C-alpha cells in the first residue's frame, strides 16, 4: 500500500475527525467506564473535593444497582424503558404504516398532508414535552374536551396516575425470559419446518424444549434478589407514549411512503393478475418488501427510546418517580445526589443496552456492503 499523495490527503482529511471522536466519544466512554468502577461520590467529603481520593471498587456499583435495596427505582426504570420502547415502537410503526398507506392512495393534497404529518418531527422533545404536559393536565387540557359536548369531564390522571398494571416479581425474570425465548424458538422451528429445512427445525425445537423446560423448573428457583419485589407498567407512561408517538410517527410515515413508492408497479400488477385481492396483495407482496425499512426504523426509534431524557424531563419533571427512566435517574444520581460513580454505572448500563441494538445492525449492514 503505497502512501501516495492522495492517500496522505485522505488521512489528513480524516485525522481531525478521528482524533476528536477518539477523545470526545471513546475517551469519555472510557473515563465513564473507569468512574463506574470507582467509588467517587460514596464519601461526600471526596465527591466534589479539588483532589478527590478515588479508589477502584470493581463491580460494587453494578451490584448495588441490580441487587441493592434502595435501587428499586433503577430496576423499575429498566422495566419502564422496556414497556415504553415496546409501545413506542408499535405505535410509531403502526401509525406510520397506516398513514403511509392512506397517503399512497393518490389523494388530493398529498403534499400538504405529508408535510403536516412530518411537522412534529421538526420540534425538539422539550417543546413537545411542554405542549403535551399542558394538554394532559388532569384538571384542564384534554380532560375538559367532553364537556364541550355536554358530557362529564374525563377523570384519567394522565402523568400523575400512580397505578401500576401487569405486575410481576423481579425474581421471576429469568424464568419469564427463558419462556419467552423458548416460545420464539418454537415459532422459528415451525416456520423452518414449513420451509422444509428439517435440520434447522429440529435444532430450534430441541433448544425451545430445553429452554422451556429449564424456565419452568430450575429457572423458577433462581433468586436475583433475596426478597420479592413487584414491578409493572406505570399507567402514567400512556401520556408520554402518546407524545412520543405523535412526534416520531411522521418519520416512519416518510420512510414507509418512500418504501411503498419504491415497490415496482409490475409486482403489484403481477400479483393482481395472479388473482390476489387487496388484502393479500399487501400481506404477501408489499409488507415483506417493506421489511428492511421496518428494521431500520426499529433500530433508530429503539435507540431513541432507550436513551430518552428530555421528553420525560419536560413532560413530567425530574421528580415524578412513576415516569422515571434510566437516563433521568443518571442525571439525578450524578448531579443532585453527587454520586458520580453510581451515575456512571447507570450510564454504562444504558450504553450496553443501546449497543446491543445498534452494533448488530451496523455489523450486518456494513458486512453486506463490503461483500458487494
Amino acid at each position, binding site marked *: 500500500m503505497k502512501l501516495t499523495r492522495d492517500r496522505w490527503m485522505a488521512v489528513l482529511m480524516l485525522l481531525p475527525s478521528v482524533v476528536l471522536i477518539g477523545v470526545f466519544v471513546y475517551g469519555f466512554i472510557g473515563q465513564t467506564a473507569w468512574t463506574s468502577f470507582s467509588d467517587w461520590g460514596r464519601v461526600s467529603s471526596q465527591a466534589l473535593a479539588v483532589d478527590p481520593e478515588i479508589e477502584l471498587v470493581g463491580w460494587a456499583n453494578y451490584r448495588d444497582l441490580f441487587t441493592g*435495596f434502595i435501587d428499586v*427505582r433503577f430496576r423499575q426504570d429498566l422495566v419502564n424503558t422496556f414497556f415504553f420502547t415496546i409501545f413506542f415502537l408499535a405505535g410509531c410503526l403502526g401509525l406510520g404504516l397506516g398513514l403511509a398507506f392512506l397517503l399512497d392512495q393518490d389523494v388530493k393534497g398529498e403534499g400538504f398532508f405529508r408535510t403536516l404529518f412530518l411537522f412534529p418531527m421538526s420540534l425538539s422533545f422539550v417543546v413537545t414535552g411542554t405542549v403535551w404536559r399542558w394538554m394532559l393536565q388532569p*384538571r384542564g387540557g384534554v380532560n375538559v374536551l367532553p364537556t364541550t359536548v355536554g358530557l362529564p369531564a374525563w377523570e384519567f*390522571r394522565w402523568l400523575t396516575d400512580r397505578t401500576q398494571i401487569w405486575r410481576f416479581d423481579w425474581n421471576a425474570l429469568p424464568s419469564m425470559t427463558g419462556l419467552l425465548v423458548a416460545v420464539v424458538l418454537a415459532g422459528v422451528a415451525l416456520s423452518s419446518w414449513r420451509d422444509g429445512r428439517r435440520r434447522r427445525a429440529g435444532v430450534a425445537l430441541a433448544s425451545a424444549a430445553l429452554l422451556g423446560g429449564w424456565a419452568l423448573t430450575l429457572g423458577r428457583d433462581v433468586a436475583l434478589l433475596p426478597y420479592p419485589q413487584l414491578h409493572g407498567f406505570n399507567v402514567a407512561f400512556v401520556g408520554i407514549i402518546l407524545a412520543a408517538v405523535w412526534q416520531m410517527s411522521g418519520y416512519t410515515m416518510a420512510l414507509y411512503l418512500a418504501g411503498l413508492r419504491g415497490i415496482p408497479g409490475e409486482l403489484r400488477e403481477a400479483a393482481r393478475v395472479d388473482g390476489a385481492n387487496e388484502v393479500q396483495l399487501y400481506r404477501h407482496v408489499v409488507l415483506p418488501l417493506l421489511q428492511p425499512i421496518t428494521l431500520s426504523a426499529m433500530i433508530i426509534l429503539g435507540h431513541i427510546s432507550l436513551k430518552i431524557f428530555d421528553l420525560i424531563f419536560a413532560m413530567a419533571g425530574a421528580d415524578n418517580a412513576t415516569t422515571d427512566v434510566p437516563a433521568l435517574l443518571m442525571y439525578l444520581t450524578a448531579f443532585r445526589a453527587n454520586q458520580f460513580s453510581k451515575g456512571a454505572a447507570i450510564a454504562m448500563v444504558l450504553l450496553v443496552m443501546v449497543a446491543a441494538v445498534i452494533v448488530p445492525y451496523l455489523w450486518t449492514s456494513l458486512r453486506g456492503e463490503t461483500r458487494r
Partner: protein
Amino acid sequence: MLRRLLTLLAVALLGLAVAQSQIEIFSWWAGDEGPALEALITQYEADHPGVEVVNATVTGGSGVNARAVLKTRMLGGDPPDSFQVHAGQELIGTWVVADRMEDLTFLYEEMGWFDAYPQGLIDAMSTDEGIWSVPVNIHRSNVMWFVPAKLEEWGITAPTSWSEFLTICPAIQANGVTPLALGENWTQVHLWESVALGVLGAEDYDKLWTTELAFTDPKALEVWDVFGQVLDCTNDDAAGLSWQQATDMVVGGTAAFNIMGDWAAGYMSTTLGLEPGVGYGWAASPGTNGVFMWLSDAFGLPMGINNREGTLDWLRLVGSAKGQDIFNPLKGSIAPHFESDLSLYNAYLKSAAADWQSNEVVGSLAHGAVAKEAFMSDFATVMEIYLATGSAEGAANAAQAIAGQVGLGQ
C-alpha cells in the same frame, strides 16, 4: 463610515477601561423572586461604584437546575464569586467537606454577627472548623394556611395537633371540601417534615439528623403512620398540582388547610392581592406551636475566586440588617438579623419575625438545612416506596439504609 468605526472603537476601549472589577453572584432567583435580588444589587453598586455585579441566575424552583450548573462550574475550576445556597447541610455536606469554602468566622467577628443571629441558626451553619455562610433571609416551613371566613362557615378551628386534625377530617370531607390541599412531589416531603415535627417534637426531630434516633425506632415509625392517615385527607390529584394551585384550592374554598412555607404568604399577598389576617390566616402546623422550622438562603465564600474583596463586601451587605431589610420585604421572608426594622414588613411577616425571635428553631429537611444532598435526593425514593407500598416499615427501613449509605450526620 471610518469615523463612526473609530468612535465605536474608542467608546469600547473607554468602557473597558472604566469597568474595573466585577463580582458574579450565582442564584436561582429569577422571575417572581428577581426584584428582591435586583434591589440588593442596586444597593451594592451604589455603595461600591466601579464594581459591576454580574447577576448570574439559573431558573428552576428551589435551585434544582442551578445546583447542577454550579457543580459543573466548580468541578471545572470556574467558581462564581458567591452563590446562593440553602444554609446548613446543603452547603456543608457538599462543598464544605470538599474543602472548597472559606471559613467566615473572621467576618462574623468583624460584623458582630454572633450576637445578631439565633444560636440555632449559627450552629446549623457551622462545623467544628468554622462558619461557612451568611444568611440573607429566613423562611418558615411549618405554617398552616386557611381562610378565616371559611373556617367560621364550616364551624371549625385550626387544629393544634395532628390527632385533632384527623378527628375533624371526616367532618370537613362531609362538607365536600378537601381537608388538606397538597401539591406535587416536593410538597409531600414538605408535609412530611411538618408531620415529623408535630409527632416527634423538636428534640427528637433533631436527633433524626444526628442519627441518635434511628428511622426504624417506633417513635419514627409513628411519623409514617400519621403521615399515611393525613394523606388520606388530601386531594386525589395532588401529583398534578403546583404549590400555588394547592394554595388556590384553599383560597377558593375547595380545601380547608394547606401546609406550605411562608412564600405562600408572598403569593397570597402580592399575586392574589389578599390582606394578611383577613383574606388568609395562618397558624403553626398542627403540633408545632412554639417551634420555628426554618430554611434560609445564604451566600458563602468559595475558594479560588477572582474578586475576594468585592465578594466580602457583598457578604457584609447581605448579612447586615440594612441589606436584609432591603431584600426581605420584596422577597416575602424575614430577616435573620435581630435588629431588623419590622416596620417595613407586612402583618404576616411581623408575626413570623416575632416567632423567630422567641421560638425554638429547627432546620427544614425538604429545603436543605438538616441533611446533605445525597440523603435528600434518595429520600424521594423513600417517599416513593411509602406511596407505592403504604408500609411504614418499608419506608423506615429504606430511610435507615439510605442514612447509613450516605453517611448522614457525619
